[in-house]
């Protein structure tokens, strides 16, 4: 079956010739019209639209956005904060970068609508430190919007006031975790908070109710309020509504970003047709479907079981290429849609070396407050690096599994899972390569150093 055509909702103007990131251009393209209409409606109605839309967070967890907003404590009398999570740093993910650089007003409009819907008086955009131009572009865009009375006091005469500031991170991946991000915004080390009791919706920034939403998620809100929650559900598939942006990197002919209706494209269509397949003379070996912490898929393996189609349970028997790229299907086969970062590896890659690369990342980024994660990620890195650069032993596979299995569920935040899933899944899918690595590295040296 041929791949569907792209449905560009969020990326409608990305890379469009002549489209600039300033306010006049955005206004020319109908910008802030949705916000104007929204300001005339009741905030509860807007929350309802988002609930009806079925929007799921695009940062990685795929949590219902409407539900997140519903959980906000509105009775405490404390101010409610909204934070835009622009700390995009899950390896393999690069969608928010383009929204921020090329269409910042779309993000600001979506943010201000979300703020109005939730009676937020102060919002922040937490952008990662490694995007200095992005931060400046956002600051300039906010200034333009403030000067046009689209942000700030008494927005467009509506009596609603809300300010928005940019806050820069400083190179720590853990700031993408929402409670770590909140700590960082409070001026501290980004050590995630324990939940309960510190659910941001109740005890977030300055111990006040706080909403943390991903950049792309907030952009979707604008489109939902524009077309209505009901109409939005017509895009995509049930429970996976709207569009998804896939960021494809690694060993394909055409890496890049592609936006499709959620669940309407399979992994095979995405990689073979949209991205042009493997490089000449190569075949696909493995793919990580949703950011580097998502469990790896091995080409050639089959996924079997029963799934719900409408009200019925039907059998499925999929190869990697057949899996629809939505949260539920990828979850069903034991991995996740996550952040939409698809990392492709071809047959030139040795999986021990690829895992060593990933382990070095997680070891570097562990915040260090929970022992299983701090020590576990470090030892997984040490073992895999030693296998590559020193002696590789046959029992290393079992040792690695033993370390990885002791981390998840024993840490304050989901980093424990994120750092152990790669090791667990690489071993489960490519255990033979780990056992035979000592021989393999003598006979088949790495095509490209990965560690």
């Amino acid at each position, binding site marked *: 079956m041929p791949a569907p055509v792209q449905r560009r909702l969020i990326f409608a103007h990305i890379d469009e010739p002549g489209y600039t990131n300033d306010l006049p251009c955005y206004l020319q393209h109908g910008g802030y019209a949705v916000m104007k209409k929204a300001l005339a409606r009741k905030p509860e109605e807007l929350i309802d639209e988002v609930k009806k839309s079925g929007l799921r967070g695009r940062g990685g967890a795929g949590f219902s956005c409407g539900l997140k907003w519903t959980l906000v404590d509105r009775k405490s009398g404390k101010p409610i904060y909204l934070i835009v999570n622009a700390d995009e740093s899950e390896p393999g993910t690069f969608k928010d970068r383009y929204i921020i650089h090329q269409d910042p007003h779309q993000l600001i409009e979506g943010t201000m609508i979300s703020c109005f819907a939730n009676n937020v008086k102060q919002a922040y955009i937490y952008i990662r430190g490694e995007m*200095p131009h992005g931060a400046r572009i956002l600051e300039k865009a906010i200034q333009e919007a403030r000067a046009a009375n689209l942000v700030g006091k008494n927005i467009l005469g509506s009596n609603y006031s809300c300010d928005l500031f940019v806050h820069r991170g400083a190179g720590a991946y853990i700031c993408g975790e929402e409670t770590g991000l909140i700590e960082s915004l409070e001026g501290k080390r980004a050590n995630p908070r324990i939940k309960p009791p510190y659910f941001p919706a109740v005890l977030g920034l300055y111990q006040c109710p706080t909403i943390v939403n991903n950049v792309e998620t907030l952009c979707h809100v604008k489109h939902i309020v524009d077309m209505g929650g009901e109409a939005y559900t017509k895009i995509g598939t049930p429970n996976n509504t709207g569009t998804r942006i896939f960021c494809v990197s690694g060993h394909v002919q055409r890496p890049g970003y592609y936006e499709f209706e959620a669940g309407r494209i399979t992994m095979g269509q995405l990689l073979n047709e949209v991205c042009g397949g493997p490089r000449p003379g190569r075949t696909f070996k493995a793919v990580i479907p949703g950011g580097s912490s998502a469990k790896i898929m091995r080409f050639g393996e089959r996924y079997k079981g029963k799934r719900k189609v409408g009200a019925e349970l039907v059998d499925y028997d999929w190869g990697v290429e057949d899996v629809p790229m939505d949260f539920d299907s990828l979850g069903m086969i034991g991995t996740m849609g996550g952040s939409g970062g698809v990392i492709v590896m071809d047959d030139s890659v040795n999986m021990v070396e690829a895992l060593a690369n990933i382990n070095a990342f997680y070891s570097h*980024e562990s915040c260090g407050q929970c022992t299983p994660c701090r020590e576990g990620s470090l030892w997984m890195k040490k073992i895999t690096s030693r296998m590559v650069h020193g002696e590789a032993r046959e029992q290393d596979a079992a040792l690695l599994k033993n370390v990885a299995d002791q981390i998840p569920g024993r840490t304050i935040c989901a980093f424990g899972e994120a750092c152990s899933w790669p090791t667990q899944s690489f071993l489960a899918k490519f255990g033979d390569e780990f056992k035979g690595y000592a021989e393999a590295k003598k006979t088949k040296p790495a095509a490209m150093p990965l560690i």
Partner: protein
Amino acid sequence: MNLKPATLKQIDEVITHYPVKRSATLPLLHLVQEDAGWISTEAIEWVAAKLELPPINIYEVVTFYPMFRQKPIGRRHIKVCRTLSCALTGGYKVCEQFQQEFGCRPGEVSADGEVTIEFVECLASCGSGPVVLIDDDLHERVDAAKVKALSDQIKTAAQGRPAT
């Protein structure tokens, strides 16, 4: 602290963004580092006094976040992405080539004081790897020829600089 008047102005402005002064810790450290090039003990104490905090609260932040540095670096800062997607397309080779061009290892300052190379984690531009961030500018699909061209640019600019 000998900060530029423009920096001091920005510092006073950014503090007003937050209901709690401590929140301005990261923004202040960025501003101080951009002005002074690095964060000295004196700078830590200065920021602490400015935000009415004990210096340890600033020190612990400086040591936590990879982008804050406690020693000077070269005039140009070359950050090569190390993480998987870039590594799959040649990130390690790019980093090695930059080291050969400038004769220094990651984290060191080159002999002429011109560059510091750093091998950093994901720069979130995985689809156009290998990527390199030189000062504030991102360079995409960096291959051997591009490393050479970028290095030559840096060397030429250095020659034009008056001796200090």
